[in-house]
């Protein structure tokens, strides 16, 4: 069964450092997403991406965050200068369905745990 792959599974970084989280979505999917889950809290939407541009972003996704699809397979989330409160599990997801289709089912990766010290 096709999978969404995320690397690294766990990253520990110092406050103020840049972090890049990588995702390989399912190959024929066109819609990509990042969500995050702070320990013990709900899953929060960060950003959606389609056709090489951001479709929608939340208030969490400020100037410290950026996303990129550098080639035909990878989808990355960059945090420019990490803060303690960025510690969370970050989930990448992809979908073959248009958001407006009303059947927008996402396939999630296993997540990348980011710990900021």
């Amino acid at each position: 069964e096709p999978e969404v792959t995320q690397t690294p599974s766990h990253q520990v970084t110092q406050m103020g450092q840049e972090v890049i989280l990588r995702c390989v979505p399912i190959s024929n999917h066109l819609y990509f997403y990042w969500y995050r889950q702070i320990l013990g809290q709900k899953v929060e939407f960060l950003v959606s991406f389609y056709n090489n541009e951001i479709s929608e972003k939340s208030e969490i996704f400020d100037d410290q965050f950026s996303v990129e699809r550098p080639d035909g397979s990878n989808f990355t989330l960059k945090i420019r200068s990490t803060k303690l409160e960025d510690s969370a599990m970050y989930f990448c997801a992809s979908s073959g369905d248009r958001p407006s289709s009303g059947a927008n089912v996402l396939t999630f990766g296993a997540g990348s745990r980011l710990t900021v010290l």
Partner: protein
Amino acid sequence: SQQGEEDPQALSIQEGENATMNCSYKTSINNLQWYRQNSGRGLVHLILIRSNEREKHSGRLRVTLDTSKKSSSLLITASRAADTASYFCVLIYNQGGKLIFGQGTELSVKP
């Protein structure tokens, strides 16, 4: 708030029993989905129900949707220890494609 409110927050049952989780919301939705998350792992899509549907089944899962009451329920029949996980009600609104997750119900099935 756009997210669903789930009830109960935690549920502990014996293997073989049925588990029912409820979700209520405030604003009209396009569709509602249920996802499952095993501890510390990724999220897995379980079932989608559209706003014009009332009930859907998938294996041991049964989902109902009452748009007049703005509520949904997920029933897992004949539960197994492997069903132990967090279950999330996820809302999709007409105006956008993003999924809005509720707080989740933590289900524990004891063997």
